């Protein structure tokens, strides 16, 4: 979140509410969950760290928030570093994998039944994301994020299918 806010200030100084509405637009339906105060908390932290400065503007009287935020040189450096970074969140399949192994070893539960239950849940999430993407009013750029959610969950479903194959075979062989 901090890096995103810094990057959004790179072009020009902006009010907090501007940053918030730009971010919400880019997130599409997924942006509706964004907490209104989150951006201000983030800005306050960035100011404390010396990455942004702010000053009062004469702004519009209908806006309670009249601070304009701008990047400091340190903030600019951090944006450059962030853009070059290639870290990537790793979906953690280990726990579910070990759950199946433990369930089978100790005969706690039928691993195939666990896979079935998990598939129903992942399928439900994928269906919801795909349904959201069907909405024609969604901005195509925001839709791209939903597509990413869908494709990831599809990969999870493919893997669950492999889990099912493996554990069905084990059961038959036992």
């Amino acid at each position, binding site marked *: 979140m901090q890096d995103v806010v810094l990057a959004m200030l790179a072009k020009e100084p902006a009010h907090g509410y501007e940053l918030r509405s730009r971010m919400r637009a880019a997130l599409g*339906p*997924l942006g*509706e*969950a964004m907490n209104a105060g989150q951006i201000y908390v983030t800005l306050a932290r960035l100011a404390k760290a010396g990455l942004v400065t702010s000053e009062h503007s004469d702004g519009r009287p209908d806006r309670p928030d009249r601070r304009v935020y701008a990047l400091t040189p340190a903030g600019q450096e951090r944006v450059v570093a962030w853009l070059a970074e290639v870290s990537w969140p790793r979906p953690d399949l280990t726990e579910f994998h070990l759950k199946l192994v433990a369930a089978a070893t100790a005969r706690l539960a039928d691993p195939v039944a666990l896979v*079935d239950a998990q*598939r*129903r849940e992942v*399928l*439900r*999430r*994928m*269906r*919801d*994301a*795909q*349904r*959201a*993407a*069907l909405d*024609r009013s969604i901005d195509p750029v925001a839709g791209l994020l*939903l*597509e990413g*959610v*869908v*494709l990831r*969950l*599809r990969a999870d*479903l493919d893997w669950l*299918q492999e889990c*099912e*194959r493996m554990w*069905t075979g084990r059961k038959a062989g036992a």
Partner: protein
Amino acid sequence: MTVLEARGLTKRYGRDSALVRAVDEIDLAVPAGQKLAVMGPSGCGKSTLLHLLGGLQEPSDGEVWLAGRRIDTLSERALARLRRDTIGFVFQSFHLMDELTAVENVELAALLAGRSPRTARRRALHLLDQVGLADRAGHLPAQLSGGQRQRVAVARALTNEPLIVLADEPTGNLDSAATLEVLRLFEELDTTLIVVTHDTRISAIADRMITMRDGAFADDTRLAGAVRAVRAVQS
């Protein structure tokens, strides 16, 4: 009202130790208006099931009833007529006639069903408009994108106002954007629809999902129509 029903439906291939039960004693009732997605890995029997339901293959055992009429015992000729007049098919590879334009492909089904050329053309143009291809009516399939070809195929499937549309991997050859087009089209359909697919995205338009395994149903879930989709995505 049940549109399509299967009782003890079975398809076996081979014999003795090589015996494969592609479809194994399946019971299924599909009410009018339902959008059913049958999913599962390749080889689970879902395509065979669709072929049996649509009268494209003969079952080894069991019965298929369409709108209260038993169809698995019909002669090949009667079956051909029934398929033409009451079932709309959509396939992975579109199955359009390459030398016919979009509108000619769509109207062909109506002409074969005995409609006048004028009625057939009017119906075809109306359907192409419905699938968002009014301005592509004169194009040959080769001049259309994959998604557009599949939309022509859906229009063709609807030509004779079928009781049911059966689709076999309709998004199998399509990229993400074209898949979205086809999903939107299916979403708007009023006709009863059965889709067999390994593409789990189809679930977005389904109000019932069946998972097949080894020729039988492993899971059969009915889904609420109006989902609070966005909220659920965030959770």
